[in-house]
């Protein structure tokens, strides 16, 4: 069989490893075989390719030192950076639904771009746990890109495939087949955005600015370099030539970066007129609404997604979470079971199923789901599973079991602030005041934006008569949950104490 045909077939069947071997053989025989060279390049790219529209991560530098947003104090509801606390349903939200950062309720689906509201200062960012505001540990600047580059170096032991500095781009730029593959190789495999940009600029020029694809790639490079306005320009120009889904998605991301959620919503809506009912656009819309704190609207968008794509994991999980925290665990259970039928079997899913079963009073399924979750879970996840088991034990009234469950959660994850808080409450019931206080202290230092430990410390201090500490703690609780009626009452009572002579 012809080795090139074989390599092509391997490439089509996504057997990149073997394809690369084959191409290397061909190139060894004839080092001027451009077809094999091209194919090997593409195979190498495909091996490490990650969809960069979905892969959006803010490092610490982007989160804190980069100020591309125009308005520093935006009106509420027009910015993604201001956490809209207790958004929507009358302030009950925060009491029902746990939140990650101050005011951001937990989402149903974690993706690489999930950002809680970022930390305020560099000190704070360095002090908080590394996964507090992002799906992955935060690095100094967009870490994933750096890591991808280094990983690709490791995978080829006998040196890099192409020495970029020795390539003459002006030779490749006019050839469309060559240049496109080369560009993707440089961008995704080598992660050399600057060189990629150089090539893209030359190629655009060579095509007399008539090729929308190159404009899109230029925009992509600008985006990665943080030049958002240039990126927007290129995208607009590309859109004029060719309506393309990717450009709408990229533009939405640009507006998110510029902290202009309303512009992003407009953009997505415009995209939806061109590509009616497109799943990606609808999902983007839902994400923006979620970021703005409009959980109801986000759920509506996710429901639209489900209408056209009934297997969308993100939409299913998000709506299920929404139902669960809105007192409808039965509906959440239905959706999570659908996810199970789709073939997902993760610890998170089983835990969610178990919780839904328990709160929907389907007691026969609950503990088996927890069992399954424990067998499937990794160490960090085990902490959450045990934490939730502790809650179930609490609701059954078995306080000692729940105590042990929370303890186990702590043994798997030392930084589990919620478990510390609940242990503190249990200790308080046993009248071990000192233990309780230290647990609350631990919880509030680990997760300063949780209002519960602050409030609990305040209650304890008030009972002991130490009104100064009570005042300080309850003030902190108020800061993170302004609508909490009990802490409001306590604050008023303390103020009366302080003003009495």
């Amino acid at each position: 069989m012809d080795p090139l045909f074989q390599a092509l077939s391997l490439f089509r069947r996504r057997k990149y490893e073997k394809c690369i071997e084959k191409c290397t053989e061909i190139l060894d025989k004839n080092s001027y075989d451009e077809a094999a060279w091209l194919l090997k390049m593409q195979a190498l790219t495909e091996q490490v390719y990650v969809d960069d529209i979905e892969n959006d991560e803010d490092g610490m530098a982007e989160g804190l030192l980069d100020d591309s947003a125009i308005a520093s104090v935006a009106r509420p509801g027009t910015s993604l950076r201001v956490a809209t606390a207790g958004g929507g349903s009358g302030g009950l939200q925060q009491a029902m639904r746990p939140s990650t950062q101050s005011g951001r309720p937990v989402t149903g689906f974690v993706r690489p771009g999930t950002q809680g509201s970022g930390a305020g200062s560099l000190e704070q960012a360095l002090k908080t746990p590394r996964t507090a505001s992002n799906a992955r540990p935060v690095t100094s600047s967009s870490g994933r890109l750096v890591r991808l580059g280094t990983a690709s170096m490791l995978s080829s032991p006998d040196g890099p495939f192409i020495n970029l500095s020795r390539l003459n781009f002006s030779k490749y730029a006019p050839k469309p087949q060559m240049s496109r593959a080369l560009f993707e190789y440089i961008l995704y495999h080598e992660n050399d955005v600057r060189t990629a940009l150089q090539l893209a600029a030359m190629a655009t020029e060579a095509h007399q600015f008539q090729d929308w694809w190159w404009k899109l790639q230029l925009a992509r490079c600008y985006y990665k370099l943080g030049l958002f306005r240039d990126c927007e320009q290129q995208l607009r120009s590309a859109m004029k030539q060719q309506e393309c889904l990717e450009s709408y998605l990229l533009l939405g991301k640009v507006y998110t970066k510029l902290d202009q959620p309303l512009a992003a919503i407009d953009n997505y809506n415009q995209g939806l007129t061109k590509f009616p009912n497109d799943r990606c656009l609808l999902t983007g819309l839902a994400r923006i609404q979620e970021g703005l704190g409009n959980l109801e609207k986000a759920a509506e968008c996710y429901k639209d997604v489900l209408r056209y794509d009934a297997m969308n994991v993100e939409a299913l999980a998000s709506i299920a979470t929404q139902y669960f925290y809105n007192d409808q665990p039965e509906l959440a259970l239905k959706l999570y079971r659908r996810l199970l039928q789709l073939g997902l079997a993760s610890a998170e899913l089983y835990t969610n199923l178990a919780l839904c079963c328990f709160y929907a009073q389907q007691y026969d399924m609950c503990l088996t789901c927890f069992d399954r979750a424990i067998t499937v879970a990794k160490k960090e996840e085990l902490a959450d599973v045990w934490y939730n088991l502790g809650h179930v034990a609490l609701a059954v009234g078995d306080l000692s079991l729940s105590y042990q469950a929370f303890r186990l959660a702590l043994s798997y994850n030392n930084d589990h602030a919620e478990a510390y808080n609940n242990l503190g409450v249990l200790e308080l019931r046993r009248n071990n005041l000192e233990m309780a206080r230290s647990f609350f202290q631990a919880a509030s230092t680990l997760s300063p934006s949780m209002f519960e430990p602050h409030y609990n410390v305040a209650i304890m201090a008030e009972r002991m008569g130490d009104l100064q500490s009570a005042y300080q703690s309850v003030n902190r609780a108020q800061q993170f949950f302004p609508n909490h009626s009990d802490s409001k009452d306590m604050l008023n009572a303390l103020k009366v104490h302080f003003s009495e002579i």
Partner: protein
Amino acid sequence: APKPAAPQGRKPPELPQVERSNWLIHMHYVRGEFDACMRLIKEQLVDSGNLCEYALYVQGLILRQRGRIQESMDAFQQCALLNPSSVNNLKQVARSLFLLGRHRAAAGVFQDAAKQAPDDWEIAHNLGVCCMHMRDFAQAKDHLRRAAGLRPHESTLVQLGKIHIIENDLQHALEVFRRAVELAPENPDLLSTLGLLYMQCNQYQKAFEHLGNALTYDPEHTKAILAAGSIMQAHGDYDVALTKYRVAAGNAPESAAVWNNVGMAFFGKRKFVAAITCLKRAAYLSPFEWKVQYNLGLVHLYTEQYASAFHFLTAAIQLRPKMPALYMLLGVALSNLDDAENCRLAYDEALKVEKETGSRSLDPLVALNYAVYLYNSGDASASGRMLGEFERRLQERHGNAAAAAAEAPDAVETGKRLAALLNVGESLLWRTEAPAAAAAAAAGPADSAAPAVHRAPAGRDQPKRFA
């Protein structure tokens, strides 16, 4: 004496007067302009070399209002050093100690102050409060009574009432709070506390009166709304209670007590699904509240979901083990779950707990449900004995048969049917009517006789987190 004329063009040297701008400091302070006041105080203190007593004093007051008690105490201590003869300074130092939770030290300083000013009601009041925090109730009461004698003030009476409540002396507490309300008739907190006390003494008419007064002064007072609503619920005015709760739920949406009462109001209207939803939200918000669990168990018994009812009732028992009614309902649930063994144990436990706690008026329903169960399991003679017990308790509680039939018609009806089945219809209670309902096959769950709506008073619970 005639003074020599001052030479033209030279003003007399201005002597630095220590208390120069006290009036201005005071003006700023009473207007609440704390920032301006602090600025002025700082100037004044620099000018006078930290010798201006009033500036230090006001600084202490402002710092205290901002919650910085430790710093304010330092200021007051400086005041006391500058002017050791002032009772006021001593009082403020002691008060700061009190606010910091150092009650023993505060009491000591107050006693020193009392030596200088024996007839100051504030000192007596504060001494009383300190003693109360040190759990020395007898002395606390003495001090507070003295304070009230020197000058009656409602806060003194409130503290005195608190001590009575802690000692579970409701009659005296009622008296004290009544006097407090006379002193401050427009204070909704006092009015609602008095109303709750009347409720605990089963004087619902008076309770309602006071709660109503509280609501006229503050229509959004959550505590008063809850208490008034629960009285309405007890009289079956569910719709009125629900409209009241709507206000409370807007103010305190995360209060388990509100949701519990709303749930039971729906239950009263026989809207079981809505009731369960509200009660489950209450249970979610406050997992340690046994009343919510009890109510959930009860509602699930009504909807004939016995497995869930069992679950909630056991949870309630874990949280509050000494409640006969819980064991009785558990027995009802178990008898429907085909667990005869444990069912009998549950009923026995209910009787045992009743005996242990020694409650004054025994619940007739426990006996009735036990009798129904015994009859259903074929033990007719034991069932007859239990029915006799039921009858005895019914009479004890309601007096005569007519009153019993009026207040708990379902229970009396079920009792009659059972009596007819057992052929023990010769006793006092059953003789009023002929056993007409003899055709009834087997008595159903008799707990339907009394829904036993439990109302949670407005309490403060620690919020929990759920993931």
